[in-house]
């Protein structure tokens, strides 16, 4: 097999893995958008906040230590213990549920029946607030996150492909675990939404608010539930991204990469978010590999957005979104 083709295959596989992360972030967007029509700008920051909190808890960091030290002239930074990853993850998940409750109680509840744009603006506010709050709570330095996911080159794949083609593929173990995590998450979400009482209520609310109320569904409970799930998805995205490149504030920027994913997949489709994420992941890596050298590289910065723009022109509802029909 020609070398170029082998390289391209390897690039594609790596693209798939990168796409998983985009898909995870996009998934959080879709969940909230479907259930409430709110475009949650803060989804990326939620991932950042979850990752910061997870690292903080794991390392026994004292929250708000800068603030405490500044006010009381103390020098506290660490509790001096180390929390096992699994407990830290559970605790962080609980905090994301608390966060969902706070968002419903203090933001959404006061904005019911407001135009979508107002709600969107509120989530922008929420994003900046959380970024600042995360900074205040855990500090702004880059942190290393290790919850025990395997890292480094996957040797069996390297050796097998070497045996077949005389060229070993470099696939990171972390990417493989991320993919497995994402698959588990999506399967769990699907089972939950199809077969559980709360999942059925969630689908009902996504379909028609009035009808949902009439069959005895509490909208407030559903908002908390859906934001909790989105928080949980954000936590998974935060773990994957944080393990890969450290927990840093640029994490919130992957939210921007989720936008083109949504335009491809459609804002209301869970499979759309997954496939859209994979297409963008593979697309931008392959494009960089083939066309990049001709145009001086760095195409990954803009490829996704241009692709999304093309979709906006030719298929505005995305690959899987519901057809947009304007009633007159």
């Amino acid at each position, binding site marked *: 097999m020609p070398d170029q083709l082998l390289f391209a295959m390897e690039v594609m596989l790596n693209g798939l893995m990168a796409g998983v992360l985009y898909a995870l972030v996009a998934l959080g967007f879709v969940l909230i958008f479907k259930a409430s029509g709110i475009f949650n700008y803060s989804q990326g920051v939620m991932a950042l906040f979850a990752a910061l909190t997870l690292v903080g808890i794991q390392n026994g960091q004292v929250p708000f230590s800068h603030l405490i030290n500044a006010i009381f002239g103390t020098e506290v930074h660490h509790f001096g213990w180390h929390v096992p990853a699994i407990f830290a993850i559970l605790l962080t998940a609980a905090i994301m549920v608390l966060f969902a409750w706070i968002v419903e109680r203090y933001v959404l509840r006061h904005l019911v029946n407001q135009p979508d744009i107002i709600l969107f603006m509120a989530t922008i506010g929420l994003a900046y607030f959380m970024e600042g709050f995360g900074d205040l709570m855990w500090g702004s330095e880059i942190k290393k996150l290790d919850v025990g996911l395997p890292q480094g080159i996957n040797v069996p794949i390297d050796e097998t492909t070497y045996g077949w083609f005389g060229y070993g593929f470099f696939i990171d173990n972390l990417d493989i675990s991320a993919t497995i995590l994402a698959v588990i998450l999506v399967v*769990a979400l699907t*089972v*939950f939404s199809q*077969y*559980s*009482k*709360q*999942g*059925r*209520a969630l*689908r*009902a609310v*996504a*379909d*028609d608010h*009035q*009808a*949902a*109320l*009439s*069959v*005895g*569904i*509490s*909208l407030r409970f559903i908002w908390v539930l859906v934001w909790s799930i989105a928080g949980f998805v954000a936590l998974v995205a935060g773990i994957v991204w944080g393990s890969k490149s450290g927990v840093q504030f640029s994490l919130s920027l992957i939210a921007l990469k989720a936008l083109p994913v949504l335009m491809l997949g459609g804002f209301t489709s869970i499979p759309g978010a997954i496939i859209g994420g994979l297409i963008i992941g593979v697309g931008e890596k392959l494009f960089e590999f083939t066309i990049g050298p001709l145009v001086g590289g760095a195409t990954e910065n803009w490829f996704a957005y241009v692709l999304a723009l093309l979709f906006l022109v030719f298929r505005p509802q995305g690959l899987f979104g519901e057809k947009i029909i304007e009633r007159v």
Partner: protein
Amino acid sequence: MTSQTAQETTQDTDSFVTPDGRTIGGVIMEMKNITLRFGGVVAIQDISFDIREGEIRAIIGPNGAGKSSMLNVISGFYVPQDGEVWYHGARRPRMRPYQVAEQGIARTFQNIALFDGMSVLDNIMTGRLTMMKSNMLQQALWFGKAEREENAHREQVEKVIDFLEIQNIRKTPVGRLPYGLKKRVELARALAAEPKLLLLDEPMAGMNVEEKEDMSRFILDVNDEFGTTIALIEHDMGVVMDLSDRVVVMDYGKKIGDGTPDEVRGNQAVIDAYLGVAHD
């Protein structure tokens, strides 16, 4: 006969048997001096009436009279500025629609509110949400109890489907159904909740004669077989006279008549409102 005498004749007795042999019980719901305003518009003005157990109670009146608003007050969608709602002999505190639903009050809407993206079966299943017990974890893990419960609910839903004769469309996405069938599915979803009180906002609007006859038959059968108390809004006077035990007449947010169909038919204020004498 005036509305006052009509009320007096029914208020004191605790239960009685109608000419067609159904037993009407005591008062289960009572609206006391309800007033509802939207800005300057007074949709309901100081209206009182009651609903008795097992009866079919109609609310009629010209367009914009405030009929739907009244149903919305009962089901918790609108909160009146004034007045009290009494249910099963106790004053009901302010409630959200989902809490009203949990109390055994189901409803349909004038402009149909179904889950268009779901199948007929799934739509009707949502009617049983308030009765589902298994907690989230059991459901997520699909333990035996949750599965048994799901099957029990499925059985009940199948009964409703047979009852309303919609077996052949159970897997169809609701969005694709014609109007008349949508109305029927909406009724099915309300029935799936096994309500004590069923509120129907113009269940026959926009239907042809044949569909209306079917719907009338279903409403009578529900009332007869399950003893469900029904409050319905309807424009077709013929239908109202055939179906209902007692009728409330509204016009411009006020109650202008209350009594049996015959009493109401002879009421001058009602005749005027329908012929447009009072305000034209």
